[in-house]
């Protein structure tokens, strides 16, 4: 016992404090209270609408009246719906093509704008113009540009003697898809270009100087220095770009309303048409909910694929 008494010090008397006092003193609780408003806002404005939308997709709710639970019926109808699958195809095509081209053009512009050039500030402002024009305005402008009767492109080519009749830009499915993708690219490039430019300006010039002294070629400088250091910002910008493109609505609605014969319907526009215009909220919600897995996959690819630390550190991928 004596040995035990020597090796185990007598317990120190801890002054008893009330639970409230302990809570007040706890840093964890302080953090909780600070976080609570944010959590409430996120729950109210982000989680609730999402969960409500998912719930609606399992009901036969219509505009103006609550529905009853019908299980997977809305999804079963969509599974067998050619227009829905066409909208899925269109959405994927639109997102992939537009995102890839926007990235390529945006990166090229960013590299260009990062060089010393005359009137740099003015050129940068001009590049931003498509982004600051309201989407609907630019969509209406493109609708005019691609109009079946009054297209400036058709008019010019006709007067140059290149074509005999007007080009049916928005009346032919493949052409209409190309037109809406072009409009999206035009609008989205500045966001990518300016964001990547911001990233490029964080790269230390000394790295380029050292590489140049070592005799590195332009491509080696780009692939070994610029790209690895830019990867984190590419991950962020492409994640947002994919999300914005995948959920695009205004451009399509103002230009084609999903036509011709649903050839440019995206999941977002079809969801609006079925849910709001047709009044079948449940079905519209099911289409919107069906977008979630695609969005998660898109985020997963761009985020986790590009965020791997080994790659960022310039090491080979595991």
């Amino acid at each position, binding site marked *: 016992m004596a040995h035990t008494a020597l090796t185990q010090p007598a317990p120190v008397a801890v002054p008893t404090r009330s639970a409230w006092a302990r809570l007040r003193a706890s840093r964890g609780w302080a953090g909780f209270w600070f976080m609570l408003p944010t959590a409430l806002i996120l729950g109210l404005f982000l989680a609730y609408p999402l969960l409500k939308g998912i719930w609606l997709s399992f009901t*036969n709710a219509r*505009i103006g009246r609550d529905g009853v639970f019908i299980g997977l019926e809305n999804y079963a*109808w969509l599974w067998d719906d*050619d227009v829905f699958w066409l909208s899925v195809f269109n959405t994927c095509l639109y997102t992939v093509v537009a995102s890839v081209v926007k990235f390529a053009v945006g990166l090229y512009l960013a590299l260009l704008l990062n060089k010393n050039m005359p009137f740099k500030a003015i050129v940068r402002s001009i590049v931003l113009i498509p982004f600051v024009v309201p989407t609907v305005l630019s969509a209406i402008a493109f609708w005019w540009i691609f109009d079946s009767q009054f297209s400036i492109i058709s008019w010019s080519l006709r007067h140059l003697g290149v074509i005999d009749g007007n080009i049916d*830009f928005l009346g032919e499915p493949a052409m209409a898809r190309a037109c809406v993708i072009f409009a999206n690219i035009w609008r989205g490039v500045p966001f990518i270009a300016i964001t990547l430019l911001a990233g490029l300006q964080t790269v230390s010039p000394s790295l380029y100087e050292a590489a140049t002294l070592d005799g590195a070629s332009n491509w080696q400088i780009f692939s070994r220095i610029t790209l690895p250091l830019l990867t984190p910002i590419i991950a962020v910008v492409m994640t947002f770009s994919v999300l914005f493109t995948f959920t695009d609505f205004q451009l399509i609605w103002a230009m084609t309303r999903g036509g011709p014969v649903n050839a440019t319907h995206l999941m977002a526009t079809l969801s609006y048409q079925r849910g*709001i215009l047709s009044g079948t909220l449940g079905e519209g919600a099911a289409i919107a909910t069906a977008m979630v897995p695609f969005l998660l996959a898109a985020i997963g690819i761009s985020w986790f694929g590009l965020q791997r630390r080994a790659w960022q550190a310039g090491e080979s991928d595991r």
Partner: protein
Amino acid sequence: MSGLDRRSLLTGAAAAGLAVGGDLLGFAKAWAQTAEWKPEPGASLSLLRWKRFVPSEEEAFLKMVDAFTQATGVKITVSNESYDDIQPKASVAANTGQGPDMVWGLFSFPALFPDKCVPLGDVAASLAKKYGPWFPSAEAYGKVKGNWIAIPVSFNGGYPNYRISAMKKAGFDKFPTDTAGFLELCRGLKKNNTPAGFALGHATGDGNTWCHWALWSHGGNLVDANEKIVINSPETAKALEYVKSLYETFVPGTVSWNDSSNNKAFLAGDLYLTNNGISIYAAAKKDNPKLAEDMDHAVWPVGPVGKPTEFQLAYPILAFKYSKAPNACKAFIAFMMEASNYNPWLEAAQGYLCEPLSNYPKNPIWTSDPKNAVFAEAGRRSLAAGGLAPVSERIAAVLADFVVVDMFASHCTGREDVKGAIKNAERAATRIFRNT
């Protein structure tokens, strides 16, 4: 509805006299004294309406609103939206219980949410007593399951607009009255490089109206009177073949047209026959009198069914149950439909709008210019959305989903053969009409 006594009759007569004399405010004040619906004290209303196509119509409408406000003290805020934006905004208002007190929109939109609409049977009965009966199509738009949920304020006649010289050059002295002759005319126009063109894109007004005419004129229907889907029929197949033949004569690009495309093309001289309201003519009279002189309008040709199968735009107005002033809404709707108000407003619309009731006093707008006369018949000749079927939220969904338009467009563009186009429409209708 309150009974009519000698005093109210005298006041009513005085009010009518004032209106005839052009004293709108005097009429409004006299009308307000005997109005069947007394606005709630301190009431103020908001009204969402379709954006005008003819500026003078809006001016006359706002004068009417102003007179009502001065006579009753009820302030009315009027906001405008394009055709396509009325329905979604009304839907959101219906679902959230917040928004405009009254919405004045297109086709069968009140049928999307009948439970949210103030019953207007008393207003409809009062108007029918004065100016009735309602045209069958008007009644169909105003009622859901036998209850009045909206008042069909007016129709807009969407009729063939054509260039007289081009028609004559194509070998026709008069506009053809049957579908076979109509096709021949379109072929002649195409041959002379003065083509016709009808919207086959997602055009809410023009696309839906002429495509339904084409379907119904051949005896085809999406659903029958019992809402049984009957689109898969030989009549539909004939309608598809007919429209494809028509499409081959069209100016290129009609599958991408919206509701304004044909107006622009016609006024620019690229198009010689299309379906539209009187707005092309009104614009031409103002800006291009030569073109206006060379254009005229005709009723829709009759198809193999042997009777008119027109589908005209209707403009129903509703009041939402969440409104704090339902009586003020009723009073305003009744006020705007009073012939003394309605007729000057109709005249200002230059023929763009026409009456839903059969016994309104004759409006000079229909006789002042013979080219206007066709449009006066829209309410009388039109079938309601759905054709044989009653107007319902499902029929509203059929229009919003462009089921019939897409059926024709998919066949015309070669994307589907007759069977495929019908199958897709049948499937879409089954989805919309399923019992959930």
